């Protein structure tokens, strides 16, 4: 929501809602492109819903007055802040109540069905209980389990962890998209994806000897795909990570983005797209001046989007009665690589899950939550105030994030993943229960917030690390240096994580196929991309 926010739909669907669409395009083609580039791991029922409802949801937003432009192909271009404005306006008209700064940590269940939620009112410093006929989780990804991310704070995986504890399943948790070319320094621009956007137009990356490694080391066709298609995130992230791992990165662990060789009149032309080099609410003109003078900015891949999440069906229903999930917090739609809009995902899945939850609620009465369960959660949440343990939140948070940064990054190996699993298991069983809080005030107690975040970060990372270890192949954004091939003979399966008597249990299930049959065989990374490009017919 912080960046440009494109909404994607098929060209014919666009024509159907009054945009100058490409009639030769179709829902079938859009679905095909999403699944081929998702490496066939997509739940095809979810993709069908996505392409089916995208035009109607887009039309609705346009009718509500969203300011946009249309790229003539498949994208309605707008901005996160603009979407926010329009949607907030609509929720006001419907008199929907919002509770800011309430950090929900757990779901309340009655005989396995979800009947409410419980969490911390951060500003008041009090535990709050909510009764509900049905609950929809729409909390985004868990990017903040990593120290370097392009996402805003607050995306911690707290509700993924809550869903797990309540008995729901997660799926594809090993799949993490990294956005390449994100600014490492200066701190005021850290996490900004502006160079990722610029590199589509001009500029290139260098390793520490000033060599343009993408041109030097990759096939020209791969280079072209990297700079002109939605595969850019994947290819750039892998190439940059390889450079840093072999010791040719920048001092802060990235690579260098530079524009020195770009003629000034080309830059002037590009500036028309971003007048005054302002984009969203940030003034990039000092950065652009600095780059024009011949300097390079240090950039690196950042945790960006989570393909995996809470397991849902095409109605947005989880495996628990009364619990629904929509948007990035749910898993399965984009398989092993997202190439279509996550904003469209929010719009389509949000409407579906909302409708399902409302229909279910009609059949239910508000249940009295189980007081013993409430007491248990309260005891767990407040324990750090009375604990005598010496584990402190800031230090443990750093350690958990370092595990994610070091072992659950772009390129994984079995040996490192095993180590990550044992570290995370130790942290969850031995250190989290020892967390203690120095600050006695309950109102906006950052240590308290951090203790809650650490627990959910660690639980979600454990599911991710276990899944990444389980998947003995490379597929899409999941790359194992010890298993570099994509194996369609044995691994067209989703990995499902759930908890059984407090222990994380993993299993697999075949990919849900309704429309498009995956090809058999085993492919290298480059072969996979070249094959897919051929299949897409470019």
């Amino acid at each position, binding site marked *: 929501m912080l960046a440009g926010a494109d909404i994607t739909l098929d060209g014919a669907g666009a024509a159907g809602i009054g945009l100058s669409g490409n009639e030769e395009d179709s829902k079938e083609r859009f679905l095909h492109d999403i699944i081929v580039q998702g490496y066939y791991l997509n739940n095809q029922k979810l993709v069908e819903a996505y392409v089916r409802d995208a035009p109607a949801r887009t039309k609705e937003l346009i009718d509500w007055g969203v300011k946009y432009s249309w790229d003539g192909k498949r994208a309605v271009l707008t901005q996160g802040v603009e979407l926010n404005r329009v949607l907030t306006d609509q929720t006001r008209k419907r008199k929907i109540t919002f509770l800011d700064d309430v950090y929900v940590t757990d779901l309340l269940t009655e005989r396995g069905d979800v009947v409410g939620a419980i969490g911390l009112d951060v500003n008041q410093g009090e535990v709050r209980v909510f009764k509900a006929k049905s609950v929809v989780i729409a909390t985004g990804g868990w990017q903040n389990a990593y120290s370097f991310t392009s996402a805003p704070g607050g995306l911690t995986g707290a509700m993924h962890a809550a869903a797990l504890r309540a008995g729901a399943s997660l799926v594809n948790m090993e799949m993490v998209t990294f956005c390449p070319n994100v600014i490492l320094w200066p701190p005021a621009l850290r996490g900004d994806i502006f160079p990722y956007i610029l590199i589509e137009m001009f500029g290139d990356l260098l390793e520490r000897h000033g060599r343009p490694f993408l041109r030097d080391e990759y096939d020209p066709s791969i280079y072209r795909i990297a700079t002109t298609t939605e595969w850019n995130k994947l290819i750039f992230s892998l190439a940059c990570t390889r450079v840093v791992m072999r010791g040719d990165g920048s001092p802060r662990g990235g690579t260098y983005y530079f524009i020195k060789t770009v003629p000034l009149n080309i830059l002037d032309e590009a500036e028309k797209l971003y007048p005054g080099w302002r984009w969203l609410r940030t003034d990039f003109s000092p950065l652009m001046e600095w780059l024009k003078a011949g300097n390079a900015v240090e950039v690196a891949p950042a945790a960006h989007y989570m393909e995996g999440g809470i397991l849902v069906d095409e109605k947005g229903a989880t495996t628990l009665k009364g619990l629904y999930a929509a948007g990035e917090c749910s898993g399965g739609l984009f398989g092993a690589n997202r190439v279509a809009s996550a904003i469209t995902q929010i719009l389509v899945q949000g409407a579906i899950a909302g409708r399902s939850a409302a229909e279910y609620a009609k059949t239910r009465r508000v249940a009295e939550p189980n007081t013993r369960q409430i007491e248990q959660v309260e005891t767990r949440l407040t324990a750090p105030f009375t604990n005598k343990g010496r584990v402190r939140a800031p*230090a443990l948070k*750093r350690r958990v994030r370092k595990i994610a940064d070091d072992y659950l990054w772009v390129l994984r190996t079995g040996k490192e993943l095993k180590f990550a699993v044992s570290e995370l298991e130790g942290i969850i069983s031995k250190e989290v229960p020892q967390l203690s809080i120095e*600050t006695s005030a309950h109102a906006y107690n950052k240590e308290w917030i951090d203790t809650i975040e650490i627990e959910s970060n660690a639980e979600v990372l454990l599911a991710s690390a276990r899944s990444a270890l389980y998947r003995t192949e490379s597929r899409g954004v999941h790359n194992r240096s010890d298993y570099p091939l994509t194996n369609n003979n044995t691994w067209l399966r989703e990995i499902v994580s759930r908890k059984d008597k407090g222990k994380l249990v993993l299993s697999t299930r075949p990919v849900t196929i309704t429309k498009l049959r995956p090809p058999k065989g085993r492919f290298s990374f480059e072969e996979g991309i070249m094959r897919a490009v051929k299949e897409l017919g470019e």
Partner: protein
Amino acid sequence: MSTIKVRVSRFDPKVDSGPHYQTYEVPFAARMTVMDVLDYIYENIDPSIAYHSHTSCHRRVCTRCNVVVNNKPGLSCHTEVTGDITIDPLPRFEVIRDLVVRGI
């Protein structure tokens, strides 16, 4: 390593009759932001310091990290520090604790 003096308005309405300043010494790094300074204090000196960060966007969009730095309002994620500073909460808002106010 050079350091800067950081004067932070501290106030817990449940306990204190009014705000008071507490001064911390923080190692200076080129181009560091007010948010970096507050994070340093929280992580290394005084974990009781309250400033909004758990859902801050760090991109100048959400404005929830708004504070007053040397008498000028600014977003702590984007305001760079060049020397000693005084940090106050936004005026005319109810203080929840220290730099955290209700309603932004």
